[in-house]
């Protein structure tokens, strides 16, 4: 945007100063930034950074390794990684096609569907967990049917953890993938069709390779959301060590007995979050606009 503003005042197109006009330089006067905004902006940034800094300062570094390798911690970490990986895969397998349908489908009512997909994003996770419980719990209509027909109960199992995580993470994958699909447009797909490629060939050889970056960042975001899932999990899956007690639940419980342990585990989650931001930030921001 600042590039355009430079453009107006730029010297003749082929002038030597042309290169300068394409980069921000110290001569530009920004008129859209009242100085007073720096104060609340700084507060907001501080609110994000300072607690994390506090956590790092407070961390029991001398016992760190010992704390995060305790039996309960390992169990929680392992369960978290496992369930998040499975949930992310499920997100790709069902959310991927949903994104393609949303981006390419020509059916009336698609806008409504798109809004509904965002529901888990705005709903308190614990409400989502309750909703899942009343669908798939022993007394839920689908849960009862599953119990009667197959003798399967889902709540308070690892499957429930995966379902809860999938529920909250789906919108992240769908939205960023749909964004990538829309940005890319259909031109290449049309071209592939004129070259004789049937829809499935176009899908595998053109659509998917072209959205791999978007899919990748969507997966990273979804995975991060799965790892951090708390509310829906505790409502729908409970907190059984090794079965449903994921890392966030473990942190919450540890806090009651051993604050140091909780802080150490929390730092593990912070580290994961930083990695996620480093990997997925630019594309994800684009996708969630």
């Amino acid at each position, binding site marked *: 945007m600042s590039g355009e503003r430079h453009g107006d005042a730029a010297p003749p197109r082929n002038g030597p100063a042309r290169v300068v006009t394409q980069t921000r330089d110290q001569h530009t006067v920004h008129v859209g930034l009242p100085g007073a905004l720096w104060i609340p902006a700084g507060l907001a940034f501080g609110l994000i950074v300072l607690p994390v800094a506090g956590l790092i300062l407070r961390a029991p570094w001398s016992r760190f390794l010992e704390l995060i390798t305790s039996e309960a911690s390992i169990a929680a970490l392992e369960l978290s990684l496992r369930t998040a990986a499975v949930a992310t895969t499920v997100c790709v397998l069902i959310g991927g096609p949903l994104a393609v349908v949303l981006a390419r489908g020509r059916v009336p009512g698609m806008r409504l569907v798109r809004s509904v997909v965002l529901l888990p994003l705005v709903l308190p996770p614990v409400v989502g967990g309750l909703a899942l419980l009343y669908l798939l719990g022993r007394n839920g209509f689908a849960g009862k049917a599953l119990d009667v027909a197959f003798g399967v109960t889902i709540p308070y199992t690892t499957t429930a953890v995966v379902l809860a995580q999938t529920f909250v993470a789906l919108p992240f994958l769908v939205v960023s993938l749909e964004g990538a699909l829309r940005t890319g447009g259909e*031109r*290449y797909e*049309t*071209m*592939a*069709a*004129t*070259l*004789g*490629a*049937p*829809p499935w*060939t*176009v899908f595998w*050889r*053109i659509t998917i*390779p*072209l959205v791999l970056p978007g899919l990748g960042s969507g997966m990273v975001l979804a995975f991060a959301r799965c790892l951090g899932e708390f509310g829906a999990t505790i409502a729908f899956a409970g907190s059984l060590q090794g079965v449903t007690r994921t890392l966030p639940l473990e942190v919450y419980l540890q806090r009651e007995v051993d604050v140091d342990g909780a802080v150490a585990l929390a730092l593990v989650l912070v580290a994961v979050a930083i990695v996620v931001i480093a990997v997925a930030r630019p594309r994800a921001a684009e996708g969630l606009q």
Partner: protein
Amino acid sequence: MNPGLHAEVRVRRGDFDLDVTMRVGRGEVLAVLGRNGSGKSTLLGSIAGLLRPDGGRIVLEDRVLTDPDAGVLVPPHQRRIGLLAQQPLLFPHLTALDNVAFGPRAGGASRREARAVALRHLTEVDAAEFAQRRPGQLSGGQAQRIALARALASSPQLLLLDEPLSAVDVELAPALRSLLRSLLGDRLTVLVTHQVIDALVLADRVLVLDAGRVVEEGPTLEVLTRPRSAFAARLAGLNMVSGTATVNGLRTAGGTELAGSGDGGGPTGVGQPAVAVFPPASVAVHVHPPGGSPRNVIRDRVVALEPECALVRVRGASGLAADITAGAVVELGLHAGSEVWFVVKAAEVAVHSTHTARAGAADGEQPATAVHSGPLTRSPDDA
């Protein structure tokens, strides 16, 4: 039996209304000329199967591809119609070779066979050396060559070229154009273009589209040297004045008489709608009423001076244009607003009957003198 392409396309979309019937014989290259919004893209999209027309019928080599009344709409991938667009649209994740191999692969060839075919086509467009490059590492001209190879490698029965040279650098266009000519050979091709040179070099026949209707159709040379529609005349770089035929030439609706000779030697039907056509280079410019008795003098006012090759194009308010030297412009002291007299020899004016074509209707937008002119080298809205 109907070899080649027979397309009848009717599309209504709000104000826009396309109704075109066209036929392209086997081995023929047809150029479709028309300005933006004339319906070229809609026509092309309908043939390619990317648009569903409201009515009509599209038949390629005896296969019915589109017939809305019968509920037939063959999907694009089963049409065997290749497309080369303005942009090369090479698949960015594949090498040049695999781009070209895409069509044969989709057609069921093994990877090795497909690559062999692709390499042959790459060699044909003189781009074998780029086989292993990604599209991002190719220049626009190289990419368009490879896109051409890709379109040909899928062995289409019909090739659609949608302004294939308009996004290519000016310096590179001639080479690519002659490459196209050598490769099109006797391929059934429909070429959409704005540029008369494309039609001249590549097309056997020309079809001129205006506001969704065919206003002119015929052999390329005939249409471009003896245009009957305003658009074809502009394309061909000719001045065109419409009116009614007289014994000596033509009279405009405003009463101006133009002397000229009719096509085929004999005078066209007197009193019939006709057009007079003459090149800007044969128009002289005077700032005083010319002495003597040149037969064709048109009083006008200059609206613009534009560079045109080594000359200056003087555009009049009536739409006429004259190409004169820069020296003459200075000598005459011409500027926008100057009063001028355009003079053209009768021998340079060709009068064509238009009562069969719709040139008269196409001229509806013009006021009384109904003058069109000026080669349309490339209008800015054509991008």
